[in-house]
């Protein structure tokens, strides 16, 4: 049998309707509907992705997502309260002579959330996998969120300490950890290869990043003494005749570093996808192009902003018309009395509503112009080789993840949908 190609079926018009409807429902319910909105988006996108012509299916529900979120925020609130109180007492103990430590204590809370964020990401992925199906067969993921969290912390620290030199180790080890715990029915995914294979795509990033650092270091060598002196003596810095070109070149370097970081992420994803197998040697390919993704981001960003500006203009004009229509006009002149509380309230409400409407439009346009083409591009590059091997796969049991991605939702690390 020949390889199964993937088609993407679904138009922007339908997605626009779905995004508008759910966007306004979310705004009207003060955000409560967002769990159902996310679910409906996932169902839509999953059904648009059709490997071998058969749509994927997302079976999660908004209700379980909402319940999972509540479950997660209760646990997280307890964790944070406990952590904050402990940090508070420790800093009070230590603060006898160094008052600044109280502020460091407050800064420690985000630090305490880092492992939790990695844990949340793993659990969110596990939930999504457990609610995904293709050809009636469930995907799934084994438990292992904490193992992922400590590995992610360790490899992130190594990457930071080596200024990016060990980034491929982090990418590879974490991806392998995730892949080796993923299943389609009774067949397990396996990540082959080694992190050395990711150094090729990393080289442009490393050259630019280290080059930029060197440029700034070189530039600062001249400026730093003057800067330190101005800080210690509390006087404004005098303009020095230090060369400006290292900074100008460094700014260009930052832009290139960023672009090559994106290239590395896409390319490493592609390299590792080619080295995954499912079950007894079923291979597949997924090969998105960096330049396509960057183009989608740039053009999509411009379109999103343009469309939002147009929508915002209409909303603002409408808001002003409504404001004048119901007789709201601020008393003018110095002799005018203070406006009635009800007038201020009405104006504030009008302002808040206009703002919310504009944000809803922005999210809708982002969905249409960025998320949609991205998903389509990535999906269309998926190919499954040797589909006859699928016949060895059987159904797996339903996996109940109680938090249903709620930790990621609470910590705002959810992603586009």
């Amino acid at each position: 049998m020949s390889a199964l190609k993937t088609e993407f079926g679904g138009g922007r018009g339908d997605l626009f309707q779905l995004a508008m409807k759910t966007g306004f429902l979310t705004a009207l319910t003060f955000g409560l509907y967002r769990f159902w909105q996310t679910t409906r988006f996932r169902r839509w996108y999953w059904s648009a992705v059709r490997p071998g012509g058969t749509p994927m299916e997302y079976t999660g529900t908004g209700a379980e997502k909402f319940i999972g979120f509540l479950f997660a925020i209760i646990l997280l609130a307890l964790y944070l309260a406990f952590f904050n109180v402990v940090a508070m007492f420790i800093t009070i103990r230590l603060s006898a002579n160094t008052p600044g430590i109280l502020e460091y204590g407050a800064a420690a809370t985000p630090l305490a959330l880092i492992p939790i964020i990695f844990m949340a990401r793993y659990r969110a992925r596990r939930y999504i996998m457990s609610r995904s199906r293709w050809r009636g067969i469930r995907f799934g993921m084994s438990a292992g969120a904490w193992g992922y969290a400590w590995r992610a912390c360790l490899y992130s620290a190594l990457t930071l300490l080596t200024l990016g030199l060990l980034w491929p180790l982090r990418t590879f080890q974490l991806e392998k950890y995730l892949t080796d715990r993923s299943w389609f029915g009774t067949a397990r995914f396996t990540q082959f290869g080694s992190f050395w294979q990711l150094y090729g795509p990393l080289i442009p990033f490393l050259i630019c990043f280290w080059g930029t650092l060197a440029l700034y270091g070189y530039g600062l060598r001249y400026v730093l003494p003057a800067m330190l002196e101005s800080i210690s003596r509390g006087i404004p810095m005098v303009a020095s005749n230090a060369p400006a070109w290292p900074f100008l070149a460094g700014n260009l370097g930052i832009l290139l570093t960023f672009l090559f970081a994106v290239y590395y992420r896409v390319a490493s994803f592609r390299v590792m996808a080619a080295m995954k197998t499912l079950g007894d040697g079923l291979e597949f390919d997924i090969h998105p192009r960096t330049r396509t993704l960057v183009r989608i981001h740039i053009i999509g960003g411009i379109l999103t902003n343009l469309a939002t500006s147009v929508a915002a203009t209409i909303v603002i004009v409408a808001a002003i018309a409504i404001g004048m229509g119901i007789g709201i006009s601020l008393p003018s002149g110095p002799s005018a009395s203070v406006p009635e509380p009800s007038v201020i309230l009405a104006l504030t409400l009008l302002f808040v509503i206009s703002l919310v409407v504009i944000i809803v439009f922005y999210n809708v346009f982002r969905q249409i112009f960025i998320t949609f083409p991205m998903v389509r591009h990535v999906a269309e590059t998926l190919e499954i080789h040797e589909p006859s091997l699928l016949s060895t796969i059987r159904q797996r049991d339903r996996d109940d993840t109680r938090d249903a991605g709620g930790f990621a939702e609470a910590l705002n690390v959810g992603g586009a949908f």
Partner: protein
Amino acid sequence: MEYAIRNQAFADKMAMSYAEFFDGITPMVQRVSLRVSGQGEAAVLELKNVETHAEIRWRLADIRQVPDQAREDAFIFTPDNDAPARLVIREAEALRELVTALPDLKTLGAPKGSWRKMIGMVAAAVVAFGAILFGLIPVMADRGAELIPPETEMALGQGLFEQVYPAMGAYECTDPAGQAALDRIQARLTRGLDLPYPIQARVVSEPSLNAAALPGGHVTFHRGLIEAAQSPEEVAAVLAHEIGHVAHRDGTRAVLRTMGSFGIIGLVYGDFLGGSAMAAVSQQLITSSYSREAEERADAYAHELLAREGISPGALGVFFQRIRDQGLDMDLGVFQHLSTHPETLTRIEASAAAAAVGFTPGDPVLSAEDWAALQRICGGGAPLSGGTKG
């Protein structure tokens, strides 16, 4: 309910339809022919494998459709809410007929009982958040405030003073004559008081009508308040109120409470649009409820202190009334809850009531020239006219 098939012609037509079937056991596609048979509740959809002729029946009443499909060229059905088996119908004709035959076709939905579970979880979350924010954290912060050595508190307050006001674009007003006048009021109010640390009263060039008690006895008047006051007694009354905060170490409590509740509110809003703004408003509501009690206590403290020094406790009320007349208190609907101070009217009444109890009038708080010096502490000739707000 009526699941009957409308007519035989339809059933016959269905018999000619084909679809893709996934049995939910293997990922292999089976080609099946479709036929509807039976009437009413007993009506079933028969799926017959075209190769093996194996037959499966789905009760029409139980069939669910998978919703939110991206493109209307493949419709997906499932025998009931739980089963993993799927039927993919691509032939438009068969599809239309099946949908007309099933006017009550339901979409695949959440299992029953999830509403009850949801309400239960909402209640649990409300209780948990209430217990943490209004029970655990205030109690722990109050306990923590008692453990902090006064020197630390003084240094903390100084640190905050040096951070907060420059960030607002304000500087400390240091006119010596004005500062001397302020010190005179302070000396009169604090004599014989047993405070954890000395009061350090200062004025900053911030035009709003406000005053604050930072941790460690650092009391700050905003320039707007000094210039809007019509008599030194009003400034003395506000200072007495702030001394009340210092005596109760409210500044330190507030810092520790903020520290303790850090990040907890943000959880509720997640990435909802405008979530961070909502979180900020909620944080403000909680802070305000924390401080309402502290404000009332500081008011009561001020009334007592003023009466002892022969200054009318009503002066505090006079000052609040002035703010009110200028329309500067946010005493409107929703905003009322956002202001950290209790409803101004209530406080004016409390102040008047304290004055009515009676006190022995003492010496004036400041001489006319001292008062003029205090009003000019931030320089700039004539005081701003009342009601100007930055």
